[in-house]
């Protein structure tokens, strides 16, 4: 443990932070003193009271596996109890506390609510009060927890590899500032990621006040420059587009994956899903895209085309819909039938429709989308405009070019890099790495000593978001105060402190910096009350930015359109598409095992990325899935395995960014997948024509969790249109009608726990899978074992392709976890009663009784049981052990495990309720998957109360049972996925 400890027995930074904010820091004072027996790294574990420390999994392993086995001959040594010296108030041992904070991805924040046991964050959930979260969290937010405890994180400040103290760095920074004063800081550059934090903006200004010539650059490989440029083109100034999908009856997506990505994806998903159920007027979604995205998977009609053709399609649509543009030049794209139908459908729904353009598309497409929305009168109804939340809109690869040029020419003397790993994420043609070599004083601030750190003189470890004080803003501008859940594990420094070092305030601590900033803000008579409220709620009320109504500049749009129409559609060859990854994003999460092992929602590939091709194109190139190919674009080439994906556009190859990491410390990320940045051009960062694909002849091995894509005509994930539902009620009736039985029904006098999963709402985003993994201490097993079919996820999301053609499949997602059958086939075959039925209808799995015959799994028709083929928890490293949820047993090798309906939450709620002398209230228990679901697809509750939502959904007309004919009587009900195709097209 001491080897993990950079700073010796006492942790100065922790002490630094321990002072100001008593309410939060009490449980960490032990840490600040740093003298707890277990070493400063694990103060919560060490100073924890008996109950949770008993939960430490090492002992459990001992008790449940080895010692219990030898109980006859071995007596366990007496267990130690290490009580607090002073127990913090409101820390009751074993009772969790919840703190509100926020996490900003590419500068846009999502509000979080973090569960903490004795100062140990163990679970992240969305903050219900936060406008974009509303209680939901995505895969990235959920997985944040694991990266907090990532042993690969950087542990020390270094100068040319040698350890340095923060003090030493501050002196260095001071000197640097003095040196740069002479020319006003012309040689001083800051490279950060786009950041909406008011505090950072303030520091930005203060640096400029001291060094007016200093320059600030923003870089994010997935930045949405085009959207702002599009707005500038359409309205004369960059604006932020806010779409309200809950009001849209018809949605047309021009290569916009608003469900899978984008800064406000959680809100978008929730609003969109609210229109996919019969309770509301069913919306219709048209998607025009090249690679099959989550949004495309939800589409009622999906048009495959090369990304470069989307502009022509948009042009065609605009010409049909906005009279202001008509009479202009005609598109070369012979308007297709779907285009006309779409146009008609949009026209029929003026003011109730919306056209959204994807960030991957050029500004013109965005401008045309704005034009169409204006023409249809959607503006201020389904779509609104506001001043951008992000201060610096130009942050894409193009924006990096001037900086790199200056670095080359030696005009940059000091470069402060806070953007995550630009040396890796910068497009290859910029060759950022070599340019960095030309900067005499490069300072890199990051979570890991990664590719960029290797080329910078100074390295300063960054604090994890859960270790940091700061502030952030949501997409709609709402401000959240970012408060830490735990003192920095590895002597990290916040972003704010680093910049403050250049205005001589680096030693004040982030807490002081952020508090000072907000204290300076006008209109806060009682600052302490404001501060308490902001911290408690996780949002600053009324801080959202106003939307404004704007009118398009038709002439400019028309001119740009004419220019584009004149330009021939992109050249021949294969078009190479670059996609944001659904798991590692731009590569920053590459060392997060939860995300690496999460199956990609569409391809179901884990621990890899792949070059996606359509069946036709693959056939033409004579390659099949898992063939290694060499992709060449503009003389740069890359070796990647092929994955043939139905629904992918022809003559297009798509590859996700963020893989093929080479950072030395991030062992997990090393050598996983292929690095698409190596062929990404800075002038065409999203798609470029003229790529060639050559078969190498070797084959790769994918670890895919779902090899078989079709339903074999079995009634598994049911899909229907409202009409079919009305006309053929028998089709669904036979999937739920009570089956005859010889046995008397089992009475369930009290609660009857049950779940319902609405396939119409599920967008397959997989947030629930990660939430389940975090809540239930589910181990990660690695690529080889996933490939062998030994993944451990209790909750899996099946993805089926259906429909007439493999080229244009219909996609349906189906989350499947233990169905908690009332007649459970797994129960009667277990020879030791390790899986039994509870008096409330739960199918219980008793790990400590299981001997591992695996018979239950054989007899489970849903195949939702998971077996510990090896000792997985024993392989966890020291810091990772801190994230265990103490409420859930850790499973030893050789036992079966499965979804428990989060029984630990049920039991906690039951005990709280019964101690208080009441019954459990509706909605008091939320399973982890339900809690995080952005679309509210999962509902949990008790059937004994007819008013409960789950009871209502179990009686819904769309309800059916999975594998109903087996008579297992599952407690999890599914609701038929509704499709709303346009009669003209079907």
């Amino acid at each position, binding site marked *: 443990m001491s080897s993990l400890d950079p700073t010796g027995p006492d942790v100065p930074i922790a002490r630094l932070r321990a002072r100001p904010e008593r309410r939060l820091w009490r449980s960490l004072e032990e840490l600040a003193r740093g003298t707890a*027996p277990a070493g400063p790294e694990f103060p919560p574990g060490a100073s924890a009271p008996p109950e949770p420390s008993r939960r430490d999994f090492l002992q459990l392993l001992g008790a449940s596996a080895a010692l219990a086995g030898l109980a006859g001959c071995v007596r366990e040594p007496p267990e130690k109890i*290490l009580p607090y010296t002073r127990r913090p108030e409101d820390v009751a041992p074993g009772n969790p506390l919840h703190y509100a904070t926020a996490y900003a991805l590419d500068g846009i924040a999502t509000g979080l609510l973090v569960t903490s046991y004795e100062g140990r964050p163990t679970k992240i959930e969305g903050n219900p009060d936060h406008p974009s979260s509303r209680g939901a969290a995505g895969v990235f937010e959920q997985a944040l927890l694991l990266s907090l405890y990532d042993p690969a994180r950087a542990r020390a400040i270094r100068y040319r590899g040698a350890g340095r103290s923060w003090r030493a760095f501050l002196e260095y920074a001071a000197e640097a500032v003095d040196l740069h004063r002479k020319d006003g800081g012309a040689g001083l550059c800051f490279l950060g990621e786009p950041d909406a934090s008011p505090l950072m903006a303030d520091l930005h200004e203060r640096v400029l006040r001291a060094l007016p010539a200093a320059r600030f650059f923003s870089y994010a490989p997935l930045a949405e420059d085009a959207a702002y440029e599009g707005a500038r083109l359409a309205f004369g100034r960059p604006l932020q587009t806010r779409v309200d999908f809950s009001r849209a009856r018809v949605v047309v997506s021009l290569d916009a994956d608003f469900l899978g990505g984008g800064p406000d994806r959680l809100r978008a998903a929730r609003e969109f899903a609210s229109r996919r159920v019969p309770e509301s007027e069913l919306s219709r979604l048209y998607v025009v895209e090249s690679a099959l995205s989550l949004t495309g998977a939800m589409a009622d009609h999906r048009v495959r085309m090369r990304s470069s053709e989307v502009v022509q399609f948009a042009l065609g649509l605009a010409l049909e819909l906005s009279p202001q543009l008509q009479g202009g030049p005609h598109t070369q794209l012979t308007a297709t039938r779907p285009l006309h139908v779409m146009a008609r459908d949009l026209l029929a729904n003026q003011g109730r429709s919306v056209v959204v353009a994807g960030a991957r598309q050029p500004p013109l497409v965005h401008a045309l989308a704005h034009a169409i929305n204006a023409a249809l009168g959607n503006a201020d109804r389904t779509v609104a405009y506001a001043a951008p939340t992000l201060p610096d809109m130009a942050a894409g690869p193009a924006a990096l070019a001037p900086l790199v040029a200056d670095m080359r020419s030696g005009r940059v003397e000091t470069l402060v890099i806070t953007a995550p790993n630009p040396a890796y994420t910068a497009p290859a043609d910029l060759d950022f790495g070599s340019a960095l070599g030309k900067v005499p004083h490069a300072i890199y601030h990051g979570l890991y000593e990664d590719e960029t750190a290797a080329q910078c003189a100074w390295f300063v470890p960054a604090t994890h978001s859960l270790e940091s004080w700061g502030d952030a803003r949501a997409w709609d501008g709402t401000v959240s105060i970012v408060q830490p859940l735990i003192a920095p594990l590895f002597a990290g420094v916040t972003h704010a402190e680093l910049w403050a070092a250049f205005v001589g305030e680096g030693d004040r601590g982030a807490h002081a910096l952020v508090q000072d900033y907000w204290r300076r803000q006008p209109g806060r008579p009682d600052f302490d009350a404001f501060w308490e409220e902001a911290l408690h709620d996780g949002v600053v009320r009324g801080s959202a930015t106003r939307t404004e109504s704007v009118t398009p500049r038709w002439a400019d749009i028309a001119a740009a359109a004419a220019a584009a129409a004149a330009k021939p559609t992109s050249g021949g060859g294969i078009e190479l598409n670059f996609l944001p990854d659904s798991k590692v994003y731009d590569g920053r999460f590459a060392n997060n095992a939860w995300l690496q092992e999460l199956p990609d929602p569409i391809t179901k590939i884990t621990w890899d990325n792949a070059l996606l091709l359509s069946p036709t194109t693959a056939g033409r190139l004579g390659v099949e899935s898992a063939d290694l190919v060499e992709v060449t674009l503009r003389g740069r080439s890359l070796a990647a395995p092929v994955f043939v994906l139905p629904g992918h556009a022809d003559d297009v190859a798509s590859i996700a960014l963020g893989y093929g990491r080479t950072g030395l410390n991030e062992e997990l990320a090393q050598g996983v997948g292929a690095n698409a940045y190596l062929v990404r051009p800075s002038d065409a960062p999203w798609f470029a024509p003229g790529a060639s694909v050559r078969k190498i002849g070797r084959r790769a091995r994918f670890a895919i969790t779902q090899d078989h894509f079709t339903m074999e005509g079995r009634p598994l994930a049911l899909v229907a249109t409202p009409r079919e539902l009305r006309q053929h009620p028998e089709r669904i009736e036979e999937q739920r009608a009570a089956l005859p039985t010889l046995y008397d029904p089992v009475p369930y006098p009290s609660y009857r726990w049950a779940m319902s999963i609405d396939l119409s709402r599920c967008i397959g985003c997989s947030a629930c899978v990660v939430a389940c993994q975090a809540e239930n201490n589910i181990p990660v097993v690695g690529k080889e074992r996933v490939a062998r079919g030994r993944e451990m996820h209790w909750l899996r999301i099946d993805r089926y392709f259906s429909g007439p053609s493999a080229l244009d499949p219909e996609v349906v997602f189906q989350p499947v976890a233990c169905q908690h059958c009332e007649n459970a086939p797994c129960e009667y075959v277990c020879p030791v009663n390790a899986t039994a039925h509870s008096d409330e209808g739960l199918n219980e799995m008793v790990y400590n009784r299981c001997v591992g015959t695996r018979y239950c799994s054989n007899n489970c028709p849903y195949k939702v049981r998971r077996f510990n083929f090896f000792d997985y928890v024993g392989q966890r490293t020291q810091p990772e052990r801190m994230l265990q949820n103490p409420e859930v047993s850790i499973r030893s090798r050789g036992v079966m495990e499965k979804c428990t309906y989060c029984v630990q939450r049920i*039991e906690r709620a039951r005990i709280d309720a019964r101690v208080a002398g009441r019954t459990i209230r509706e909605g008091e228990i939320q399973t982890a998957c339900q809690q995080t679901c952005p679309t509210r697809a999962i509902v949990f509750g008790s059937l004994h109360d007819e008013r409960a939502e789950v009871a209502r959904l179990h009686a819904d007309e769309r309800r059916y049972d999975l594998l109903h004919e087996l008579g297992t009587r599952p407690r999890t009900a599914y609701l038929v996925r509704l499709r709303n195709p346009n009669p003209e097209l079907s």
Partner: protein
Amino acid sequence: MSALFPPWTNTVSRFSLVCLALGGVVGAVLLVLWVESPYFTGQHGPIEQPVQFDHRHHVADDGIDCRYCHSTVETAASAGFPALSVCMNCHGQIWNKSPMLEQVRAAYFSDRAIPWNRVHRLPDFVYFNHSIHVAKGVGCVSCHGRVDQMAQVTQVAPLTMGWCLGCHRAPEPNLRPREEITHLGWRPPTDSGALGHALVAQYDVHTRVSCSTCHR
């Protein structure tokens, strides 16, 4: 030719056959008995503690309520192990020079935890919750015995699953009025059976034996 075996070998062989037959059975029975014996369950005697803390003195003589030190027993799963500050509340004033308390003071002022030895240990896969038991009228003494008479705390109950189930199947004998929870010497007035039944109704006691009640 001479007899290979003398007559006594018959007895030997018969005897050994009997042993063979009985041995297995007897061995099994002994094993089953042993694993429930106080020695195996840990009831075999007091466990040494780093500091000589005498419950007799604090509970019986000083009449300090259990909840003064074990303060979270009504609100949390854990009864709560007193922080050193709790000791010092009193011993800051009284006996604040006593050599017996030297270790406590040292630990308190140097902020090092005293490593106590756990007496009542449940396996890590067992989720016992004090608050619910206390709320339903199960007295401390039912599981912990007359701690007020122990110089060093000894485990009096076997703490086996069978023992837990015994009470969960028939809780009445172990119920008492809530105000008597920490009263270790409390005796039911007359007919404990009737009182038990009354309390089951009054406190709405629903003991459960489903696995997930304790195993999660």
